[in-house]
């Protein structure tokens, strides 16, 4: 794609080198981690140590190179006509424009490849049956695993009596919690009939009874060595076990079908032993912890009760009683203070006195009011006095009235010569005739 874009955009011819380099980039990028199966042909082990061959099927062929370092690790002798699976990458030899597989690993197709396929087939079958559950992270384990007892006292071990596994487990168990009984059911763990022996042993220990947990396993080995633990009878026997089963097959990296149907997978037999038989000191610590908590809980409780008792005795009860008494006392005294109940006559006297007092105050107020009115009257009278014309006349003034109309003359123009006027003095009246006006 990159190449095409390049050509159409630039519209320029590539050199052969450029083209081959471009092809090399694309191929090496796309096929840098491949696994391919086919038949070997044109096989040649060069004196340089490199291995050259072709890999073919019915319709197609591809060249293959395996360099010295890689082919030294081969576990079989390759030959023409052999079906193999190779792992490697595709590379382009720019000089000749040829592409080929650079293999870093090769195995017989009917060896590991077939075993892997069988493994996957059984696993998927048991998943479909619901014995194995595929986990969200892609791993597999028993569909409904049971808990492994923390302190099993009777442990059944199904393994070879002469293998490394039993040695490892017994070494660990002997250093740990002593109160256990280990019963070994010796079985063949590899080769013809091993699977059936293991499966029978699981069933046998179940019917023999008394076991808290079973460990089924063996030490490390090749996939062929471990194969019995990938066989269906073993898987079904483990799944059917009423006693919880721990699988302990090979090393940490080895996964078997037995691991997927056991209640717990131990990475190694030693790990299985450590899981089921606790360290004596660890258990002692657990017991001590419980002892401490037990005592603390009890002393905490007695302390609580003591506190409650003392509160009731000293503070609580006494205070409650005192408070009640106090309340009643107060109520009684307030009742006592109420004179309606205690001294009614006195109250009546008092009310009477108050009434008298009110009367007196009313009278006083009335008198005061009257005095006020009297003074107002005197003042008004004196004012009236001032208005009396006679008072003015007494000071030497006189009033002139028209004799005929009786109207008080305030203006000389109201008079003419010959008019008769009456002059009123403080004492007496005189009549006069106007002789002149000005």
């Amino acid at each position, binding site marked *: 794609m990159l190449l095409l874009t390049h050509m159409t955009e630039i519209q320029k011819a590539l050199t052969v080198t450029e083209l081959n380099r471009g092809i090399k980039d694309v191929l090496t990028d796309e096929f840098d981690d491949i696994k391919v199966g086919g038949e070997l042909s044109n096989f040649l082990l060069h004196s340089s140590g490199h291995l050259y061959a072709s890999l073919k099927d019915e319709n197609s062929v591809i060249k293959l190179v395996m360099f010295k370092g890689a082919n030294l690790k081969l576990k079989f002798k390759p030959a023409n006509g052999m079906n193999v699976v190779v792992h490697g990458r595709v590379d382009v030899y720019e000089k000749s424009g040829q592409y080929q597989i650079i293999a870093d690993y090769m195995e017989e197709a009917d060896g590991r490849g077939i075993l892997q396929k069988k493994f996957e087939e059984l696993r998927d079958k048991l998943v479909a049956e619901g014995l194995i559950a595929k986990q969200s992270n892609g791993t597999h384990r028993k569909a409904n695993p049971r808990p492994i*007892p923390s302190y099993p006292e009777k442990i059944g071990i199904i393994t070879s009596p002469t293998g*490394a596994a039993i*040695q490892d487990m017994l070494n660990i168990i002997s250093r740990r919690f002593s109160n256990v009984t*280990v019963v*070994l059911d010796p079985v063949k763990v590899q080769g013809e009939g091993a699977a059936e022996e293991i499966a029978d042993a699981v069933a*046998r220990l179940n019917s023999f009874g008394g076991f808290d947990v079973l460990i089924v396993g063996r030490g490390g080995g090749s996939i062929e060595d471990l194969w019995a633990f990938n066989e269906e009878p073993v898987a079904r026997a483990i799944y059917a076990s009423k006693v919880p089963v721990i699988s302990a097959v090979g090393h940490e990296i080895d996964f078997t079908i037995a691991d997927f149907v056991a209640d717990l997978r131990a990475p190694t037999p030693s790990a299985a032993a450590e899981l089921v038989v606790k360290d004596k000191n660890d258990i002692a610590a*657990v017991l001590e912890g419980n002892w401490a*908590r037990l005592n603390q*809980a009890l002393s905490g*409780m007695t302390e609580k009760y003591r506190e409650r008792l003392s509160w009731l005795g000293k503070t609580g009860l006494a205070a409650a009683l005192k408070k009640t008494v106090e309340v009643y006392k107060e109520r009684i005294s307030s009742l006592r203070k109420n004179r309606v109940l205690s001294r009614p006559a006195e109250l009546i006297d008092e009310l009477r006195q108050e009434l008298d007092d009110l009367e007196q105050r009313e009278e006083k107020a009335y008198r005061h009011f009257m005095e006020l009115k009297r003074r107002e009257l005197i003042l008004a009278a004196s004012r009236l006095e001032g208005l009396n014309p006679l008072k003015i006349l007494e000071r030497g003034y006189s009033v002139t009235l028209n004799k005929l109309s009786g109207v008080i003359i305030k203006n000389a123009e109201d008079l003419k010569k010959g008019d008769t006027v009456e002059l009123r003095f403080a004492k007496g009246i005189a009549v006069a005739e106007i002789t002149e006006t000005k």
Partner: protein
Amino acid sequence: MPEEIKFEDALKKLEKIVETLESGDVGLDESLKRYEEGVKLLRLCTVKLEEAEKKIEVLTKDKNGKATGTKEFNKPDSK
């Protein structure tokens, strides 16, 4: 010991008693009773822990592969 209780069951019982006591949900009389029981279980567990009764046995089978019993397992010298 008349009652054969397993270590694991005894420890579980003990832990339950401790939890109950810690919760303070039971009365004083009941607490004392539980405490006594707890102490008994603790003693039992401790005895079991100290008991050097480790046994390594091997299952014996008849011709048909049926278990017949157990016998002492003698560690093989080499694997």
